[in-house]
């Protein structure tokens, strides 16, 4: 069976146009730093270019990019833990957004695994099954994390609001 031709290398530009903001939001929530988020998005798209994966659907492509971005963020977090330098707040000041900053701060104060599933579910509106594929866990584990994350977020938001 003949394989379809590889995607052109400049399809990363199209991916950046389509998924750039989604990836950036995910990386920003995960890393809590705009410079690191930019690096993670860039690494994700460079890997997309190098691997030139073939996708059956757009959803498949989006899931691949989200999973890769998640892995890049975890790499960056691991690097941070092993190479502590400046305090996080000093190195990466909080971005200026027009939105309710307390909600964002509350979300970013949660542990990484809850931040990830909450962002994918409520912001990117992925289904539980798709999130399970991205984070390589079972759908029931995703549901558990969503439930626990909601509780933690509520508590953190109330604390921020006070």
């Amino acid at each position: 069976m003949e394989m379809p031709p590889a995607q052109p290398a400049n399809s990363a530009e199209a991916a950046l146009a389509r998924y750039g903001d989604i990836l950036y939001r995910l990386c920003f929530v995960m890393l809590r730093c705009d410079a690191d988020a930019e690096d993670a998005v860039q690494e994700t798209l460079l890997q997309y270019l190098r691997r030139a994966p073939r996708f059956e659907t757009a959803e498949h492509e989006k899931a691949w990019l989200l999973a890769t971005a998640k892995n890049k963020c975890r790499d960056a977090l691991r690097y941070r833990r092993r190479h502590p330098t400046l305090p996080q707040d000093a190195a990466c000041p909080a971005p200026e957004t027009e939105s309710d900053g307390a909600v964002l701060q509350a979300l970013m104060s949660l542990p990484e695994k809850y931040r990830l599933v909450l962002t994918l579910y409520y912001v990117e509106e992925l289904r539980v099954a798709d999130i399970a594929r991205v984070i390589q866990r079972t759908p029931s584990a995703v549901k558990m994390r969503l439930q626990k994350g909601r509780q933690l977020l509520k508590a953190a938001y109330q604390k921020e609001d006070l």
Partner: protein
Amino acid sequence: MGPELLKHAVDQVRMPPQARARILQACRAQAATIQEEETGMKTKSNAFPRKRLPAVLAAAALCLCCAAGAFAAGRAGVFVNVKNWLGAVTGGRYEQAGQEIALDAAYADGTLTVTADLLLPKKAPYRELDTLCIARYRIADGAGDTVAEGGPTEVAVIENGAARMTVVCDPLPSGEYTFYVDGFTGGAKADAPLPITGGWQCAFRA
């Protein structure tokens, strides 16, 4: 706090235009690098038969010549130093001389006359030798069983590039025999005996 509030809050996070431009630039550079690598690989693979084949053939010919030379050198005799336990050279011997001496034997009345022809009489060490004797010999019958062995034999003078030695043995029943020699000892005036090792054999009839 509802999900809408969370979504609205996070949705406001957008990639800055400068970051987007930097990422785009990096992607274009990476794409160019990948394209260059692919082009280079194609050129390399196409060029292989034209450029590499003569080189491979030349290398193969060189290896063949070296191997043939080494084989020929391996057949020639070599001098080897004999050292004591301190590593000091106390003498010498000549090895791998199997192709440099021809052996012939004739049996008559309990005496075996062995003729050793020096095939390279003008080459060292044969040009220096005055005498020769068999250091170790063995006689085997047609079945391969050893019927006599011994050594060294009497010393024979080398004349006209050949030495004729006599081996006295018990009378042999009629039949075909093979005479094996493991080594000779060469002698020269005012010089230490030179062991010459190798493997020789010749057939004779009793």
